[in-house]
């Protein structure tokens, strides 16, 4: 509690401190920059040890789940919740833009699907003359590499706009600040950073909303006191921790017995965990912080001859198909994969000098049972690692680009 209060008090100071600090730690400055390093000391950025839950953000995302989104529901990747806008008139240009994209990685199916969508969107915008080129640097899940990538883009001085998909929140903050200092537009998406210097920060509603949707589904479909196994990929990633923080809070409050495990998304691990849980007693519900590997969990129940659980997975095709084949009671929460299109569409808006939402909150609607058949039909022929809400149906390469990986 102490730490949380102190955190709250220092959040504002921290933002200021990191901004000031960034001035003196610019990768291209000479050592004389130490001169203005008298900024106030930044405090802890994030608490450790299971303190991911933040009531204010929880409440905000709880509301956002039922918020009205501006724009056409047919193109959800352009929808946003009404709020402050960033003026982009100064960057308006008729020349095609050179985009520099610092990507965290393409090391999981969700990012692979999104990156394909992004490349198809790029092709479309190159066709229409909005974008000249996009230079991509892939950090391979390493903060240090991504910082070097961003610093290289800055030093090269060849970028009209920066797109950054941060590998982690706090560690990438100074580098994003440096990109902002170049005066060029900076677009951050997916995971966030601890600075609001970006022109726009694009993300679906968020992890708490995922946690609330999934927990409410399990609570509605299970008796209090039911045993729920939570399968989590790995600790320490904000978008995943928030999902669990919200779900754990609600499930525990509803009197459920929850047991959480880290799986690394490895189906072997998932299957063993469920098998062990089943050998120790009944399992009524399975909660996942990402659907990757969900099929292994379902098969563990089948192999043990146990009744299939009430389950929440994700909009990954493997899960939707398994859910459909077995007729389980399930929900597919969505961490909108179509957000990978939005950064490039934001570049188009910036080139046109149109204002963009400063915090661009995209819709994030779980797939419920009555929507499943449509989702499956719309994505027929896609590989198991594909995500139903990828939002690329109207792009030129559809469907081959997503089918032939």
């Amino acid at each position, binding site marked *: 509690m102490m730490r949380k209060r102190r955190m709250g008090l220092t959040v504002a100071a*921290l933002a200021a*401190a*990191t901004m000031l*600090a960034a001035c*003196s*730690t*610019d*990768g*291209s*400055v*000479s*050592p004389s*920059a*130490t001169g203005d*390093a008298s*900024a106030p*000391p*930044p*405090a*802890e*950025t*994030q*608490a*450790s*040890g*299971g303190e*991911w839950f933040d009531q204010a953000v929880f409440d905000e995302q709880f509301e956002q789940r039922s918020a009205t989104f501006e724009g056409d529901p047919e193109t959800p990747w352009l929808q946003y919740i009404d709020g402050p806008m960033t003026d982009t008139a100064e960057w308006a240009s008729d020349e095609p833009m050179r985009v520099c994209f610092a990507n965290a*990685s*393409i090391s999981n199916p969700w990012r692979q699907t999104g990156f394909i969508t992004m490349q198809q969107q790029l092709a479309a915008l190159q066709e229409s003359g909005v974008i000249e080129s996009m*230079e*991509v*640097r*892939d950090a*391979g*899940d*390493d*903060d*240090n*590499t991504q*910082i*070097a*990538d961003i*610093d*290289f883009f*800055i*030093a*090269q*001085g060849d970028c009209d706009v920066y797109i950054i998909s941060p*590998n*982690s*929140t*706090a*560690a*990438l*903050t*100074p580098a994003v600040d440096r990109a902002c200092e170049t005066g060029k537009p900076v677009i951050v998406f997916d995971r966030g950073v601890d600075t609001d210097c970006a022109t726009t920060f694009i993300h679906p509603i968020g992890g708490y909303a995922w946690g609330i949707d999934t927990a409410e589904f399990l609570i509605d479909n299970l008796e209090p006191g039911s045993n729920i196994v939570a399968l989590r990929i790995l*600790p*320490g990633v*904000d978008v995943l*921790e928030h999902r669990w923080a919200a779900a754990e809070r609600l499930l525990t409050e509803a009197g459920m017995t929850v047991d959480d495990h880290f799986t690394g998304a490895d189906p072997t691990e998932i299957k063993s965990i469920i098998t062990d849980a089943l050998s120790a007693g009944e399992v009524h519900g399975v909660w996942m912080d990402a659907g990757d590997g969900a099929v292994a969990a379902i098969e563990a129940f089948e192999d043990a001859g146990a009744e299939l659980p009430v389950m929440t997975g994700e909009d990954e095709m493997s899960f939707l198909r398994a859910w459909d084949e077995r007729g389980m009671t399930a929900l597919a929460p969505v961490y909108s994969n179509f957000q990978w299109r939005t950064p490039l569409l934001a570049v188009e808006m910036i080139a046109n000098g149109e204002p963009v939402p400063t915090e661009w909150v995209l819709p994030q609607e779980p797939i419920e049972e009555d929507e499943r058949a449509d989702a499956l039909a719309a994505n027929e022929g896609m590989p198991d690692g594909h995500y139903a809400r990828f939002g690329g149906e109207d792009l030129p390469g559809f469907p081959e680009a997503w089918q032939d990986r």
Partner: protein
Amino acid sequence: MSAVVGARPVRRRRLSTTAIVFIVLAAVLVLSAVLVTAAGKPFFTAGNLAAVLTLMSILGFVAIGQTLVIIAGSLDLSVPYVVSTASIIGAGVMAQGPAGIVPGVLAALAVSAGIGAVNGLIVTGLRVHGFIATLGVGLIISGWLGTSFQGSFGSAPPEFRVIGATLIAGVPLSTIIMLACAALAALLLHRTRLGHHLYAVGGSASVARLSGVRTKVPVVVAHALCSMLAGLAGLLLLARTSVGSPTIGSQGGYDLMSIAAVVLGGTLLAGGVGSVLGTIGGVAIFAVLDNVMSVLEVNPFLKDFIRGSVIVLAVALYAWRSVQRRPPRFRPGKEAAP
């Protein structure tokens, strides 16, 4: 006495291998420049060179330490977790402000050295193979990190972060510190009794022991120094990222990559033969390779394929040369039996 005599033929071969390392590095540089220029992009720009040197410095610290341990005949798989631990401890102490910098650095290095000493004691005292000992210690630390820190922790004051962002004549300060550490390590290896003992113990522990060398001390010291250097890498990462991170070490894959860099630098994995200079060359080869693949936007998956192939080809080249040079001997390259 005989340890020193035993080290002599070893040194002659070491010099020549180091020369090959730098010839390979030069070849990689030329090839990279050609490829990048052919792709219509600049290679020898200040920004790009700074990027290469920055990439070098972090892996460099770890690889220098790994060199010491490998020369002594052991190896260290716990380095990624030591890197993370140092970044966490440094950030935790420094969160109080600039006054915390010195205590933070000292605390991080002390804890790192302590972990290294434990590694060394398990290897020498409990007679557990370095592979298993450091794998186990790495697991122990990773459990602690994963339980106690679920996200970034603490912070580094701007005065400390300057280290990660300052360039002196186009060379990152971090690279200069790394090269200074390399020089110190080279001095230790070649100019001190402890250094000679490291070679002797790594070459053949039994011969070293019969020659009156206390075989345990050099191994423990090498492990402690290795972990301290990994701690320095963690502190440098802290300066770059501004926060402590429990996963920053494993993100970089510094365990296997540092061992690969050391061997790429001509050090024998079996122990007893090797040099810090060669290691710096090996690290540079990696950094240039990674950089050129980034510039050319090589598919991230294909990067691993190229890395793996280069490691094997380069090491095969060294081994082929040393075999060529010693045809009549019974000793195959890697079994350094006396």
